[in-house]
């Protein structure tokens, strides 16, 4: 774009240069003449000069002199020399002798006086150039005062030449100069008409024009054949400057429709050079005539905004859809041509105009970026951006099926609990979004568990019964507890999902650990058949086997069972034949037997001295899979290991081969320093979101990634050309470790800052509560010395400063800042917003 501008600017300069046919040499500054005689004797026939006569010192004309001097250069381009003639003291000739002649400038062609200007008409360079050219171009530029005059000229011109009609609010202005300069160049091509009459402006423009701004019309009179026909007019949409006028006239001069028979990529027209788009109408031999008419129609509509070309598809090999009928080439370098299928010509016009509009808006935005951002922020502040709150609000009209769930109150709480062996209680607050979200899952649990004997689901709304909730030590919402007859209530600490809650409630039915009395029971337990309540529950079973002597390990196991109650299926066997049972799995008591997937594989682990916490930790660890499928609910368990992930993204189930290789890799090193896992995109579609963040698109699947979730956050992509085998992966990992691979992506390091600013009430209050502003003397007290290690609330205090209102006090003082937000505040006062006075 800038390149193009340069191009046509230089062409203009060239034009001007050609037009100023009079050779001008030497300095472009003011010429000095000794005396009038000297001056007049030196005047050449065809040469134009602007002269003023001045006694040796004339203080009053001083500013005028400066303008004259600076206009000398501009006038030189038009072949006008500016001469200062000194009047000798004794001179009493026509120009020097009279007092008032000294306050005038005189324009001569040869030695003939063309016009004399009072110096107050020549108040600056613009007025000097405009007036001088106006005088010189007396024939080329017609000055009109009435509409009739204008129409007369127009009628005369019809069929002969085009007309440029300009309105300027006053002569001697910059616009006037621009029109005159353009007339100097184009005056022989087009008829220039000038007016300063506002009435004429009103008659020629559509809507209410602004009489204080200039206006230029190009009237296409040359093509008019019938005298009754009016000349088409194209207004200049930009401000009247020489460049804009030149540009406009150039565009008007260009052919209405360019016929093109070559690759549109290579085409360049005056429009593209001037930074305007070019519209191609794709034509075929069969429809050529119609297409031509369309193109002309469109061209008239777009005159001055875009060029139109008619591209014959028969002549050019186009690699585009047969249906495409329009193409758009923008002046921006490197932008590909857009091929479109459009229904009618309006679409073409909106296409171009909207592009311009978009550009315009973008430019505006850049200018008022700051303000705009403020506006945007203000608009978004009151829009809910909490997905849970918004989802619950949107769902609030749906009546929840809560019939199965008993409502507990302060009155019936204790009596209800004593009636049932086990009561599940959900403590929630009816106004709180997360509890309401959980209540929805809870209602699904109720439907799911309906008819299960021995399970009573109930709920307590802590908004209704705060005393009960605080008495039950419920400090956050929601809280789910299972109250049992004798034991301490068990508080749920797992995922708030229907399945997880159901599983917890079911598992809590049997004591944890469950004492198994016979070998049969123990075997049945490992197979998942005993106890019958849990037969539908397909999770890993855990059996602690103890000889009666190992009571300490057993105690720890029992304690661990209390902690893991509801989350893990735990059994315990310490009969006399415990040894026999454990030896079946080649361990000796105390030992843990782990039966995964319905007892098909039972694993024996020897138990050593364990504290309860260690025991819990170990059980949790042992329950993790070797090569797990990562899902939304189970990810946290693996995250807790604090290791990098080697994760295989798969569009569905992984193939047996890959599974085998990965399993080999996982099993190969028992003390694995990373988590080997996979993700099924069908089951966990949010995985697509992960891939998009890493690669911005979805790469071919399956895809193996190394993700440093905890340190550094680099993501490495296993080369897709290699097959996923243990060997390949290992050698890749080695290279990776050696730093030979380049990460494909890095996890964002950003802090979770407030999504949007808050209402700054402090700032809003200040104007109406002047005493609120901190007094100067108090400022030190406002920022007391930092107490040691004190200033770190909210993470690093530096990051906190920025969005918080800390700065407002200072900002008010700053002039620019203080004004900001004034308008909204005033608006707020005018429009106090929704208020309720009665009901």
């Amino acid at each position, binding site marked *: 774009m800038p390149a193009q501008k340069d191009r046509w600017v230089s062409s203009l300069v060239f034009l001007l240069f050609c037009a100023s046919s009079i050779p001008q040499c030497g300095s472009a500054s003011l010429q000095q003449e000794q005396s009038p005689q000297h001056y007049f004797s030196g005047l050449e026939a065809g040469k134009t000069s602007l002269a003023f006569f001045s006694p040796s010192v004339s203080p009053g004309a001083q500013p005028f002199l400066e303008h004259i001097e600076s206009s000398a250069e501009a006038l030189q381009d038009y072949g006008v020399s500016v001469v200062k003639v000194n009047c000798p003291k004794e001179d009493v000739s026509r120009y020097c002798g009279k007092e008032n002649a000294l306050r005038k400038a005189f324009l001569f062609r040869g030695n003939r006086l063309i016009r004399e200007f009072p110096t107050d008409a020549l108040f600056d360079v613009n007025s000097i150039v405009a007036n001088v050219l106006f005088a010189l171009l007396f024939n080329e530029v017609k000055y009109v005062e009435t509409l009739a005059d204008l129409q007369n000229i127009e009628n005369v011109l019809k069929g002969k030449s085009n007309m440029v009609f300009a309105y300027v609010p006053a002569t001697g202005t910059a616009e006037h100069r621009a029109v005159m300069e353009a007339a100097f160049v184009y005056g022989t091509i087009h008829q220039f008409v000038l007016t300063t009459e506002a009435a004429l402006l009103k008659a020629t423009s559509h809507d209410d024009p602004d009489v204080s701004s200039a206006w230029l019309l190009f009237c296409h009179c040359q093509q008019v054949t019938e005298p009754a026909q009016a000349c088409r007019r194209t207004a200049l949409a930009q401000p009247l400057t020489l460049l804009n006028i030149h540009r406009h006239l150039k565009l008007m001069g260009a052919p209405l429709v360019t016929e093109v028979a070559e690759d549109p990529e290579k085409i360049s027209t005056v429009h593209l050079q001037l930074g305007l788009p070019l519209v191609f109408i794709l034509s075929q031999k069969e429809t050529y005539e119609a297409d031509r008419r369309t193109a002309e129609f469109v061209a008239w509509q777009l005159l001055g905004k875009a060029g139109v070309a008619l591209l014959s598809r028969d002549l050019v090999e186009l690699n585009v859809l047969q249906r495409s009928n329009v193409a758009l080439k923008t002046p921006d370098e490197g932008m590909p041509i857009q091929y479109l299928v459009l229904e009618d010509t309006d679409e073409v016009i909106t296409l171009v105009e909207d592009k311009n509009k978009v550009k315009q808006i973008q430019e505006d935005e850049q200018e008022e970026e700051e303000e705009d951002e403020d506006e945007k922020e203000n608009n978004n502040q009151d829009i809910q951006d909490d997905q849970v709150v918004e989802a619950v609000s949107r*769902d609030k009209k749906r009546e929840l099926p809560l019939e199965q769930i008993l409502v507990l109150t302060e009155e019936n709480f204790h009596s209800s609990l004593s009636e049932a062996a086990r009561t599940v209680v959900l403590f929630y607050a009816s106004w709180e979004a997360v509890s309401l979200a959980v209540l929805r899952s809870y209602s699904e649990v109720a439907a799911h568990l309906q008819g299960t004997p021995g399970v009573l689901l109930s709920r307590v709304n802590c908004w209704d019964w705060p005393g009960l909730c605080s008495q039950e030590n419920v400090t956050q919402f929601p809280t789910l507890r299972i109250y049992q007859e004798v034991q301490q209530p068990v508080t749920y600490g797992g*995922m708030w999902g229907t399945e997880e809650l159901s599983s917890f409630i079911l598992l809590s039915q049997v004591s944890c650990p469950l004492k198994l009395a016979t070998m049969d029971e123990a075997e049945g337990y490992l197979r998942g058949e005993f106890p019958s309540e849990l037969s539908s529950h397909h999770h890993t079973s855990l059996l602690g086997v103890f000889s009666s002597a190992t009571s300490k390990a057993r105690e720890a196991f029992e304690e661990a069972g209390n902690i893991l109650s509801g989350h893990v299926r735990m059994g315990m066997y310490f009969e006399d034949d415990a040894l026999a049972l454990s030896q079946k799995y080649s361990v000796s008591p105390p030992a843990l037997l782990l039966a995964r997937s319905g007892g098909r594989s039972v694993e024996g682990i020897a138990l050593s001295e364990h504290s309860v916490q260690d025991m819990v930790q170990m059980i949790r660890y042992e329950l993790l899979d070797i090569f797990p499928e990562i899902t939304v609910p189970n990810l946290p368990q693996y995250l807790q290991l604090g290791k990098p992930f080697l994760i295989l993204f798969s569009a569905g189930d992984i193939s047996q081969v890959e599974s085998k290789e990965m399993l080999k890799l996982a099993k190969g090193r028992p003390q694995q320093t990373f988590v080997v896992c996979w993700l099924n995109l069908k089951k966990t579609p949010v*995985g697509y979101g992960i891939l998009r963040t890493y690669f911005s698109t979805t790469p071919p699947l399956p895809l193996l990634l190394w993700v440093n979730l905890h340190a550094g956050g680099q993501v490495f992509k296993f080369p897709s050309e290699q097959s996923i085998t243990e060997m390949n992966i290992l050698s890749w990992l080695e290279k990776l470790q050696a730093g030979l691979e380049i990460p494909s992506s890095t996890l964002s390091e950003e802090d979770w800052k407030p999504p949007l600013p808050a209402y700054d009430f402090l700032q809003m209050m200040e104007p109406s509560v002047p005493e609120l502003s901190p007094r100067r003397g108090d400022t030190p007290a406002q920022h007391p010395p930092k107490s040691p290690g004190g200033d770190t*609330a909210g993470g690093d205090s530096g990051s906190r400063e920025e969005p918080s209102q800390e700065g407002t006090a200072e900002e008010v003082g700053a002039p620019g800042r203080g004004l900001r937000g004034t308008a909204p505040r005033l608006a707020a006062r005018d429009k106090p917003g929704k208020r309720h006075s009665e009901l």
Partner: protein
Amino acid sequence: LGLALYACGLCAVSGATFLYHDYCVIGAGPAGLQAAYFLQRAGRDYIVFERSHAPGSFFALYPRHRKLISINKQYTGKSNSEFNLRHDWNSLLTHDRRLLFRRYSRDFFPNADTMVRYLEDFASLLKLRVQYNTAIIHVTLEKNEQAWNGHYFLLTDQDRKNYKCSSLLVAAGTWVPNVVNFPGSEYVEGYETVSINPEDFTGQTVLILGRGNSAFETAENILGVTNFIHMVSRSRVRLSWATHYVGDLRAINNGLLDTYQLKSLDGLLEGDLEDLAIVKDKKGKLHITLRFYLENRNTSAGIDSITLPQDELDNFATRAPYDRVIRCLGWKFDFSIYNRSLRMMPGKGNIKKYPQIKPSYESRGTRGLFVLGTASHSVDFRKSAGGFIHGFRYTTRAVHRLLENRHHGVPWPSTVHPITQLTNSIIKRVNEASGLYQMFSVLADIILLRENATAFEYLEEYPIGVLAELEMQTGRKARNGLFVIIMEYGRNFSGADKDVFYYNRAVGEAQHAWQSNFLHPVIYYYKHLPTEREMRLRPPDWPLPRPNAIHHIVEDFLTDWTAPNAHILPLRRFLENCLGTDLRNFFAESCFLFAFTHQKLPPSCQQGYVRMQGLLGSQELRQHAVQAGLLQDYTHTDFSGDRPPESHHGSQEHLMRDHGIPLRPLQHLVNAKDE
């Protein structure tokens, strides 16, 4: 301490025998019993002295016409017991549900006898240690370095029995009638003794001195049988619905205003009672004159020689003679029993009826002496409810908590929550807390942030007047910034001459919340605990100094601040910006995505999902979130559009379709925080 207790259980100092208790409470009225309740619950050694044979002796006499003007709201439509205390002005705080006042009376304005019965039950059901028929007639100090406060309080009763205590809680109320002395004041009857039988006033013309609720209550009682009633007072009438101060004239008593303003029957006059004089004529009628006229006269000369104002000004307002003049000028604190060494000084100006105390309710003159109940009203006189049962029941609890910390090392009770519960904690309290609501602008909830703002500590109903001393008074640390939650009326809304019914008086939009006029929650954020100096230099009429940030929750017609968008959302944004973090809730699926794409997680994921307590959410909810553009549904996305363009050479349709794919909403969600 136990040993000291034992030793001093009955100790003899300079010949006199002293009965020792850690805490002595003077007065078994509502405040004294309330204090006793908390001391008893904490297992403290205390005794309450009551001059009468039963608790609440003031209520046994007053109000004379027996109608309490504290409301007894039986129904609020809510079962929330804490919330309901907002509209129960008579109950004391207790865990015992039997002791709710609404179980004692069905009247909206209950009878004073019911209050006496209630207080008796309160003392007996809770087995409070009250020593009746013990009027403390003298209090003095005994210096002792071992004592909690450097001295013991020595109390003497009417039988010269002596008591000794480490801490003295004065809950004696204000019961000494205010009396004005002027010539002829001997003809004036006091509110304490005036007949309450309207028949005694039949056909009489009555002048009432005073303009409080007792004056209007007296007038109300006889309005129907008198010729007319005039009321004189220095100040103009203050209507409680205009001032938001329950001690001003309540609408229930203002029948006289009706007859005055409607038909000029009865009337109000302004004038200083000190300038007044009353002369009695031969017929026993009382004439009003001015002290000025009497000064040069010999009063014995008789009525005829005294100039009456109407002699000079024949339309003098109170020229008609009165049959009776009644004094209803209120009460003041009994300063007489305190030894000078205690420096129990009356307050200045309009609080001279109360002893001088600090905002912590401790006497300015004596350490360890706390003033409770009505007598402590100087702290919030004509502002809040500290002079009334529904206010001082909370300030008494606050004093007890201060004492527990000071003498027993029991820090101010608090609960610790993860930062994700911050918004919830505030919303819960501003919606149900009664102490904040009744003692607006006096008691505040305090949130102390823990390091890194991952957790916070919640303290309830702390007296904000001593905010600067918070660490010392509560035993809690405020090193990482704090929030102060109070309730406020609009600053220029109420007042004696304000029109509180003007059009557009209520603000409805959250962004104009700071202009709210009705009682609404205000949250102040301080990065550092304000210093005493800052507290002193706070703007006039401000309860607290300039905070680092402030938030108003917009006033609500139902005082229900649980609207997700108008109340909770702006509050969350305020808290987020103070803490510099993102306090939004996220479904587990979002946390899952963040866990794989961000090195740090928002608090909701960090403290929930990562700890295996993620919110999976039902299908419907996730669907709603997707529709709201706050959650991306990846299940049905057409991924072909995402492939690199070169693999689709010549496919123009894709180009066109790409145009139509909107900005990915979740992307927006993630990026929103960058702005």
